[in-house]
């Protein structure tokens, strides 16, 4: 694989986004339905939502929930995933728990959390974590099962100890799995947060989007979605991609 770094790192995304917007515009004007508003309409709605300050409020709250549950789920999930991936017996025992946790409908966990904890913030965040956690575990577990045994032997022979082995030998090898988890995880958590907010919060993007949905106001839904995607795209460009580059330096 070539490691050619493009001279203008922002040119490519810009071009590709423009193309996407053009496709969107063409589709919108040929179909001409309320369901697919044109980019301009959405942009107007976005500006309106911004200038009323509403968007910032809800976006902020959702991002806050997203951030907390993301970090909890990633940390916990990586720890459990490594443990299960390395200890076949523990895994054989807990595997079915994991299958169950993975496949309980979000609806069920969310309702249970709300009923048990009440309609409070903790319940919402807990519900999101419960929904994301098994995905992280399963992905990291696959990675932990496929570690390079030669390097692990080296670490053992040189008596690295558990901490050094984890940080210097295991985690670097899990990097692609962690990144896959993080990238799909941000998206998944965002989708779960939407449902969590819909079912029992009085603020946040999910709450708002559902209000718009009741009014069938697709334009506003799109505007809110666009604002969120911009944030994620920024995280991708400012955090994840530089991280990729840094951690792949040795290749």
């Amino acid at each position, binding site marked *: 694989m070539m490691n050619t770094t493009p001279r203008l790192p922002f040119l490519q995304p810009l071009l590709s986004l423009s193309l996407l917007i053009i496709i969107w515009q063409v589709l919108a004007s040929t179909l001409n339905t309320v369901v697919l508003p044109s980019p301009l309409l959405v942009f107007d709605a976005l500006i309106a939502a911004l200038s009323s300050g509403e968007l910032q409020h809800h976006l902020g709250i959702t991002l806050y929930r997203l951030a907390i549950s993301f970090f909890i789920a990633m940390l916990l999930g990586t720890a459990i995933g490594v443990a299960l991936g390395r200890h076949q017996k523990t895994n054989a025992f807990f595997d079915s728990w994991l299958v169950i946790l993975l496949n309980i409908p979000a609806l069920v966990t969310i309702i249970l959390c709300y009923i048990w904890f009440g309609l409070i913030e903790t319940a919402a965040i807990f519900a999101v974590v419960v929904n994301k956690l098994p995905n992280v575990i399963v992905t990291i577990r696959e990675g932990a099962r496929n570690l390079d045994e030669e*390097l692990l032997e*080296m670490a053992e*022979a*040189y*008596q690295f100890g558990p901490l050094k082995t984890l940080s*210097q030998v295991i985690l670097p090898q899990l990097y692609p799995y962690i990144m896959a988890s993080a990238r799909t995880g941000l998206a998944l958590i965002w989708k779960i947060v939407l449902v969590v907010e819909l079912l029992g919060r009085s603020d946040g993007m999910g709450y708002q989007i559902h209000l718009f949905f009741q009014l069938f106001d697709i334009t506003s839904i799109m505007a809110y979605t666009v604002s969120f995607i911009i944030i994620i795209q920024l995280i991708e460009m400012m955090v994840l991609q530089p991280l990729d580059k840094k951690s792949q330096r*040795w290749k």
Partner: protein
Amino acid sequence: MNTLNIDIKSKAFTTADKHTVTVIEDLQFKLSNNEFVCIIGPSGCGKTSLLNIIAGLDKRFSGSVSLSEAGTQFKTSYIFQNPRLLPWRTVLENIQLASNEQANNDTKIIQLLQRLGLADSLNSYPHHLSLGMQRRVALARGFYRESDILLMDEPLVSLDPPTARKARTLLIELWQQQARNVLFVTHDLDEAIELADRLIFISSSPSHVVADIKVDIARGERSAKNIEQFKQQLSSQRTDIAHLM
């Protein structure tokens, strides 16, 4: 370090189709007095398996690897048959990580690397080095770490003769500075005679010791000529191991 007793009754592997293959059977020898021992045996006879057992990496064997003074622990350095460097760490970091000291002595590492011809590669990543260079880094890593026993699995293959020569000199020097037992696997009899106090010849698998020969040339006098002579003598006297040379 006190005497290390190696007594492997049997080491077996299970293959993918569930067969059991015994690789080592009744292999015994002792290591003591900071000896330098070379192990010679055909490819696939179980030399690497043996070193793995001694290093404590493989616990699934019957028999024992024990010290004469029970209860004491020993520290190993292991130079594997392939480099096994951490790809995401530079040469310097790889060596630092392997040390069990609290504070690293970077000057010492740099000196070591210099003598192995790697002065320029201090901050390179392993992937950016040739295989021979990676092997030398692995050498430096094994040498740098303080240990009671140094295990080396064909460490000098893939090196050009001048570099290999330098590495041998360095090895002997370090061994004399910081006395410890050395187990050195090699296929090169000349090299073995040049380095070792004792040569242990191992049969093909299921392997056991077939000959344990003292190299009685003084360390100062191991010239090419004397080595050649020792070899001649050995092959004429010990026809039973001629097929291993």
